[in-house]
């Protein structure tokens, strides 16, 4: 049965995730083309110096890419479910409702995980061609909170979209936006190193929020009353 759930989710997101992967790839290539350009005009030594001693983040353009990915995948997966209350079809399947939601969420999170992993590997491998290992490692640590923001945005947007009442959606959105903003508070290289574990734990905890929206839907919560 999980295969059928994954199949449905794949049908929903396939074009979006492929397009997203392509955009991510183009952004990473752009980052290094730009770096190569800087090497040619400023000299490698000066660029390395700027990265090491002035904390210049040469991959700033990648900052919101994971956030955008998480948001798009959440909308793509859950918007078709809430339009005309199609989620009823899923809840009627002979599988526990929470299990279905968790499978849907697992598929979305797995798709993002694969995309982000490909981005990080690509970023690291190309980076090692231009930069010393330490700089690449620090860059990956700098990117990590942005990746976490991608997962968190996915969990929060899923939670918001499936929530049946607009006023609650607004309230969740405000709280979610505040939480996400924490991931972007600083752009100094590797500055999130001390709180990466806490942010990771928070992201994992957020993954269960969808169950609450699902419960509220099944309970019949609705702004207009009629479910």
């Amino acid at each position, binding site marked *: *049965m999980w*295969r*059928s759930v994954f*199949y*449905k989710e794949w*049908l*929903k997101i396939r074009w979006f995730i492929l397009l997203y992967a392509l955009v991510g790839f183009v952004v990473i290539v752009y980052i290094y083309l730009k770096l190569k350009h800087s090497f040619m005009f400023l000299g490698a030594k000066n660029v390395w110096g700027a990265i090491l001693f002035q904390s210049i983040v040469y991959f700033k353009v990648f900052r919101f890419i994971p956030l955008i990915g998480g948001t798009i995948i959440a909308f793509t997966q859950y918007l*078709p479910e809430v339009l*005309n*209350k*199609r989620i*009823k*079809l899923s*809840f*009627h*399947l*002979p*599988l*526990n409702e929470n299990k279905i939601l968790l499978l849907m969420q697992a598929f979305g999170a797995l798709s993002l995980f694969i995309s982000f992993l490909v981005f990080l590997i690509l970023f690291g491998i190309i980076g090692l061609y231009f930069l010393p290992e330490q700089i690449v490692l620090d860059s990956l640590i700098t990117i990590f909170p942005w990746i976490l923001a991608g997962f968190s945005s996915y969990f929060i947007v899923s939670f918001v979209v499936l929530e049946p009442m607009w006023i609650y959606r607004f309230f969740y959105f405000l709280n979610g936006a505040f939480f996400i903003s924490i991931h972007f508070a600083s752009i100094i290289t590797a500055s999130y190193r001390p709180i990466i574990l806490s942010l990771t734990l928070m992201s994992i905890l957020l993954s269960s929020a969808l169950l609450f929206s699902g419960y509220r*839907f*099944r*309970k*019949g919560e609705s702004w207009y*009353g*009629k*479910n």
Partner: protein
Amino acid sequence: MDNVIECHNLTHYYGNKLVFENLNFRIKEGSILGLLGKNGTGKTTVFNILNGFLHPTKGQCFIWGEDSQYLSDMSKLRIGFLIEGHIQYAFMNIQQIERFYRGFYPRWKSASFWELISKLDISPRQRISTMSCGQRSQVALGLILAQDPDLLILDDFSMGLDPGYRRLFVDYLREYAKSENKTIFTTSHIIQDMERLIDDVLIIGSNNVLVQSTLNEFLDNFNRFDFELEESKTELKKDAILVNIERVKNKVELYTFSSENEIYKYLADKNVSVKNFKRVSMALEDAFIGLTGKY
């Protein structure tokens, strides 16, 4: 015979608005119950409660003895549910949706589904979102029949179907239910279809049950009498005997569960003189309108 569905003292409010109160009904295994009511009387609310999509304010429904709010996977496996408007996954094509549902139901009848689909002038690769309302409804109904459920809950199954297909579907559904001992709980805005399909009828008015009986009992016992009043100033008011009165000038349509003799006596006791008194036979639609009123 066992009851497949039992609802006890079902009461529901949306905010402060009462939808229905103390609704009690049961559906026997192998029977076909039609739920009738005007718009806004809570038909879809009953269906949502039965499928666990809505917690009633008070009362409980049971399907095969399980609380409908917490149905087991095994019970859900045996229930086919048609959502009002024939809602399905519009982003899938026919092949994809068949493949998706097939994975959940061990008794899945692919051949039945494809036989039904072959009657439509559409490609298996056509997306559901690009289909006409009638085509979508046939796909949705085909999926339910392929599931081979023991209980079919069909919320307004005839919506969007053309008259020929409606007739075909109703006749097929009745034959299928009777030959395979399936239980059906359904509603439809097209009451002629219901009359052809159902064994039992449950009619809900605003907040309460108006009738719950077999279809034949209801049609035999609920009467319409037409007559003209001798005096235009005579007033007739609804009461326990006169269930509904539709009056245009002196011409009266009177709806009642009482017999012809009882109505004669009733009118005589009230000193109401009438002429051209006659009993008019009714189809289910006439009886429904007579019971619930035109407005």
